[in-house]
């Protein structure tokens, strides 16, 4: 889709200004119902679009992403723009700098339409933890878009953006991509700089694209990846144009299906999944059953590591340096009446009580406990050791196969309110996705079929995981499936 729009821009069939206006019109028409966006950046977008139109008029070469409208999850900093992470804590926060991914996008001339909704600080699987709104699934607005990058997924599915950026800590790109029926890619840990991404769990977080096609994801990845001195964990640049590696041929490539992932799969998802396996076979791929023996420990391991890192990363929200402060306004009356002086510690405690939502506090509490004196070895260190075993499972599997394939989620999009009462049930939605973050491997979710539920057609996503830094192989396999 990006390439077609690019050709239209270059051939002067459309202008970027017109294209951008069309997308803002679509947003104004549809987003009241969908709720994908938290903030629109019209001025920034129109300025960029005009600039690109001038360049085209001057006969300059433009990048594939230049002049193309996109959306950004609201946990990435865009200079001069409100960046909330869907938290009351950052309700009035204006980012004073660009995240590295945003800097790169601005350099190639991408048009940023606005910031999209998420679960607060990216913690959740449905965007129901947003302090502002729930993003509806464009396929059935009674259902959620998935999460945590639900706004970015829904924006693309509802054609309120050509493509978007999300972040993925345990499945937050892939699960909403699966629920909304679009393509979502979580690159290898370190492939994309996290500078300017509001940190959730630093050893798991990774930024990646949502788009309508695998090729679009490849084009975007080429432009946002690379080593960055502002993120010491970013990997050496590959200097690859991933879109040049899409051969459409996967004959002889080996795809492993982990028996632990599919043995308990529900009937209707299983049917769609098995059909997709047949399709891979018919495309010449070799299908093999494999085992990832520590799979059943992955979710518990994930939650312990994630919560520990969350508790550490979110310590910065103290009501002093930026964001919300509760004391002198809301609580002063109380303080005056009771003749108490709100001291520094109380400012911290009250700000964090009011500023954070329920799920965020739950994870901070869990992580604080796990890292507290006397418990570190039993919890965080134990989890990092089991994580090593899980990584070893993947190393062993990748000696036998090129890719690992499963459904992205054990279900289709669920209804709003269906799981909010039970955190553990909500966590199970991430069961197939968390392992890629634990092992650090790249993974992609792409549509493999639809299921009729209550008169609505709901998308099902398939997930391919690849070897560390083999995004080109992974994208090629998904592209081959998609285009045949």
């Amino acid at each position, binding site marked *: 889709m990006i390439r077609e729009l690019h050709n239209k821009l270059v051939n002067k069939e459309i202008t970027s200004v017109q294209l951008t206006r069309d997308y803002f019109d679509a947003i104004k028409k549809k987003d009241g119902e969908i709720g994908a966006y938290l903030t629109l950046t019209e001025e920034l977008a129109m300025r960029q679009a005009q600039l690109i139109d001038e360049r085209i008029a001057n006969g300059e070469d433009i990048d594939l992403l230049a002049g193309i409208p996109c959306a950004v999850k609201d946990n990435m900093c865009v200079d001069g723009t409100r960046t909330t992470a869907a938290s009351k804590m950052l309700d009035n926060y204006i980012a004073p700098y660009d995240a590295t991914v945003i800097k790169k996008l601005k350099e190639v001339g991408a048009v940023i339409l606005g910031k999209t909704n998420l679960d607060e600080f990216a913690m959740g699987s449905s965007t129901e933890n947003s302090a502002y709104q729930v993003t509806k699934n464009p396929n059935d607005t009674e259902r959620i878009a998935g999460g945590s990058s639900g706004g970015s997924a829904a924006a693309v599915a509802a054609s309120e953006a050509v493509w978007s950026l999300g972040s993925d800590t345990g499945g937050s790109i892939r699960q909403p991509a699966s629920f909304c029926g679009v393509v979502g890619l979580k690159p290898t840990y370190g492939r994309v700089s996290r500078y300017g991404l509001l940190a959730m769990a630093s050893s798991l977080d990774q930024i990646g694209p949502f788009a309508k096609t695998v090729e679009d994801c490849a084009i975007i990845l080429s432009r946002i990846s690379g080593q960055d001195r502002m993120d010491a964990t970013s990997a050496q640049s590959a200097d690859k144009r991933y879109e040049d590696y899409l051969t459409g041929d996967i004959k002889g490539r080996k795809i492993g299906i982990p028996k632990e992932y599919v043995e308990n799969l529900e009937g209707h998802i299983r049917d769609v999944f098995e059909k997709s396996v047949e399709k891979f076979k018919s495309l010449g791929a070799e299908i093999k059953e494999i085992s990832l023996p520590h799979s059943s420990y992955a979710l*518990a391991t994930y939650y312990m590591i994630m919560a520990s890192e969350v508790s550490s990363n979110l310590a910065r929200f103290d009501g002093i340096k930026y964001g919300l402060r509760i004391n002198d306004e809301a609580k002063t009356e109380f303080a005056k009446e009771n003749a108490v002086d709100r001291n*520094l510690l109380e400012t911290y*405690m009250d700000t964090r009580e009011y500023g954070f939502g329920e799920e965020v506090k739950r994870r901070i509490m*869990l992580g604080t406990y796990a890292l507290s004196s006397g418990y570190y070895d039993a919890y965080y260190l134990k989890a*990092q050791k089991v994580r090593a075993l899980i990584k070893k499972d993947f190393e062993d599997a990748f000696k036998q196969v090129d890719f690992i394939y499963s459904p992205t989620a054990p279900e289709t999009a669920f209804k709003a309110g269906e799981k909010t009462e039970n955190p*553990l049930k909500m966590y199970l939605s991430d069961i197939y996705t968390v392992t890629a973050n634990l092992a650090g491997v790249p993974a992609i979710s792409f549509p493999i079929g639809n299921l009729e539920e209550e008169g609505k057609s709901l998308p099902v996503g398939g997930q391919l995981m690849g070897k560390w830094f083999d995004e080109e192989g992974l994208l090629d396999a998904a592209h081959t499936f998609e285009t045949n």
Partner: protein
Amino acid sequence: MLSRQEIQHIAGLARISLHEKEIEKYQKDLSGVLDYFAELQELDTEKVEPIGHITGMQNVFRSDLFSDFGSIGKDDILKNAPETKDGYVKVKSVL
């Protein structure tokens, strides 16, 4: 199950004020997740090296230099602070 005192202790460490009724909720929620985690204890990990960096990156160095945001940059940063004085973030007295 975690005790009320334990929950209050954790909330203090996490710098989060809790209401009475929340204490019970956290007792239940946190204990649930910890029980779920308990199944990991059955794995023998005595000889396993814990993960440091997942793709094995080590010792990334850079020069110890500061980068100047300039006066406009400083203003933009300070605008986000709830309270400032003379170009500094103001903090309540600690003593």
